[in-house]
């Protein structure tokens, strides 16, 4: 993997972090506090309601799922991060080989484009509110919305891509500054929505009629759907599967001085994936109660339009929040995807590749159904990228115990460790088949694929490492 594509903050990318650069727990709490309250939260929260999740299941399911996510960060990621003190990409390069890591990063980049596309849709939904441009979700996956909204997506996408091509630092700084305000806006949206639904007493809150009425409305318009307790738990646990099970946050925790830093994601989870999701869901419930006609798309089905939802609750501040949340999420995502593409074509300029990523994201954003399927997309994202974390786990804990060599690509000098390639792709292909052909809930596939990848990696390494050591012995004899 080139240094360009493994950009992870520009420090100690290809060496262990020295003791002098380690950070205390407070830094991690501060960092995670501002993360995970992003543009995606405005889409994901209402989708729980639209999918028919009950309020009690949502409150308890998210609680349990987020606790499991924090435990995964703490006990899966942090020990390896603190022991190796290397980025995910550098560790993978040492195990899987540089070419394979480039391929992994390309896949990562393409998935980022779709995530950024969803955020372009979210931002456009907010920009369209003052202009009276409605956000229609067509019935088929690759159907366009109305021409005005599609044109708006193109404009917003171009602006975001051009800003991303100029570098991510300014936007990252805006995101930093906006983070506490964004969290406050999420909380405000939830409080206002409850008041709009007259759910201002303990009795009304515990009865939850405001929620069940909204669910009944959604079911009447969209047809019966269920999103049960365990689906919520697994989704909340694994929606960041690429970061914890997939070990992407090794790059962050390699700076940790103490294992206690591993508890820091709790603040991001409980602000972003608990309070913000529930608040965003309440926005849709309030709109259904107050102005049900506005919650319906042209096809007569309930549609979560983040811009409209925030505007009804908090006016212009809500719109600004949706625009900034979508923009500050899409921007680094497009930038990161551009870097991944540049890794494949090293002679191309970063600016050009960022614009290509922006174009892909804008095209994806023009299909509103992609953002409406964000619950499935996030699960698919974890299914595809998560299993690489099993490769890191097995290499760290098990390879030597099974009499095999760890960091095999570095030792053998191979650009592609086929044991890793097959162990990664085989479960992922099966997982994608189950998700797209058999209709399995995407987040359910993350852990089975992770386990299968780990087992396959050991078994295949038994053959590939033996074969390679035998052939080198033959050559030397």
């Amino acid at each position: 993997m080139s240094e360009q594509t493994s950009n992870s903050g520009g420090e100690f990318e290809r060496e262990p972090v020295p003791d002098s650069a380690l950070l205390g727990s407070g830094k991690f709490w501060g960092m995670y506090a501002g993360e995970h309250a992003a543009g995606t939260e405005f889409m994901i929260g209402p989708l729980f309601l639209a999918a028919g999740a009950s309020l009690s299941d949502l409150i308890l399911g998210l609680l349990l799922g987020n606790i499991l996510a924090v435990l995964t960060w703490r006990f899966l990621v942090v020990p390896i991060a603190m022991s190796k003190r290397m980025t995910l990409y550098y560790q993978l390069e040492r195990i899987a080989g540089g070419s394979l890591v480039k391929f992994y990063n390309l896949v990562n980049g393409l998935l980022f484009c779709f995530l950024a596309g969803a955020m372009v849709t979210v931002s456009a939904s907010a920009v369209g509110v003052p202009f009276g441009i409605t956000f229609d979700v067509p019935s088929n996956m690759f159907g366009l919305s109305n021409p005005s909204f599609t044109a708006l997506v193109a404009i917003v996408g171009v602006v975001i891509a051009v800003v991303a091509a100029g570098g991510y630092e300014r936007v990252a700084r805006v995101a930093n500054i906006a983070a506490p305000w964004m969290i406050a806006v999420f909380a405000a949206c939830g409080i206002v929505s409850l008041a709009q639904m007259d759910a201002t007493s303990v009795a009304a809150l515990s009865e939850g009629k405001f929620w069940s009425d909204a669910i009944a409305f959604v079911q009447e318009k969209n047809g019966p759907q269920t999103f049960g307790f365990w689906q919520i738990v697994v989704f909340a646990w694994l929606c960041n599967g690429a970061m914890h099970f997939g070990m992407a946050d090794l790059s962050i925790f390699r700076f940790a001085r103490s294992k206690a830093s591993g508890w820091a994601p709790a603040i991001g989870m409980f602000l972003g994936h608990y309070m913000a999701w529930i608040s965003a869901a309440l926005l849709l419930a309030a709109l259904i109660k107050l102005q049900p006609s506005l919650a319906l798309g042209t096809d007569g089905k309930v549609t979560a339009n983040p811009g409209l939802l925030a505007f009804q609750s908090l006016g212009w501040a809500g719109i600004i929040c949706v625009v900034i949340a979508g923009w500050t999420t899409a921007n680094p995502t497009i930038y990161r995807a551009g870097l991944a593409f540049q890794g494949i074509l090293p002679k191309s300029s970063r600016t050009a590749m960022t614009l290509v990523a922006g174009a892909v994201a804008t095209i994806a954003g023009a299909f509103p159904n992609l953002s409406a399927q964000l619950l499935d997309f996030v699960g698919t994202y974890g299914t595809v990228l998560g299993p690489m974390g099993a490769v890191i786990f097995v290499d760290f804990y098990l390879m030597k115990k099974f009499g095999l060599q760890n960091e095999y690509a570095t030792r053998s000098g191979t650009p592609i460790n086929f044991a890793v390639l097959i162990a990664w792709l085989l479960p992922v292909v099966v997982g994608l088949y189950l998700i797209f052909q058999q209709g399995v809930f995407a987040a359910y596939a993350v852990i089975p694929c992770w386990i299968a990848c780990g087992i396959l990696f050991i078994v295949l390494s038994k053959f590939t490492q033996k074969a390679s050591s035998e052939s080198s012995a033959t050559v030397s004899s």
Partner: protein
Amino acid sequence: MNKIAKVISLITLSLVVVPCLLYFVGAIELDAVKWAALAGTIGWFISTPLWMSRKLPVDATEVEI
């Protein structure tokens, strides 16, 4: 200067949250909440950059979900 900016940021942030609570208990109207939130938003983005110049977190290029 920093201290004053921090205090203004705190006040502007409370302009986003406190009126919502007042609306929740029925003390003010929704329009007042919306105007206060807009004023708080504008104030936050004017005052906060004056003092919040903390270093970008490691892996600021990473993607949030």
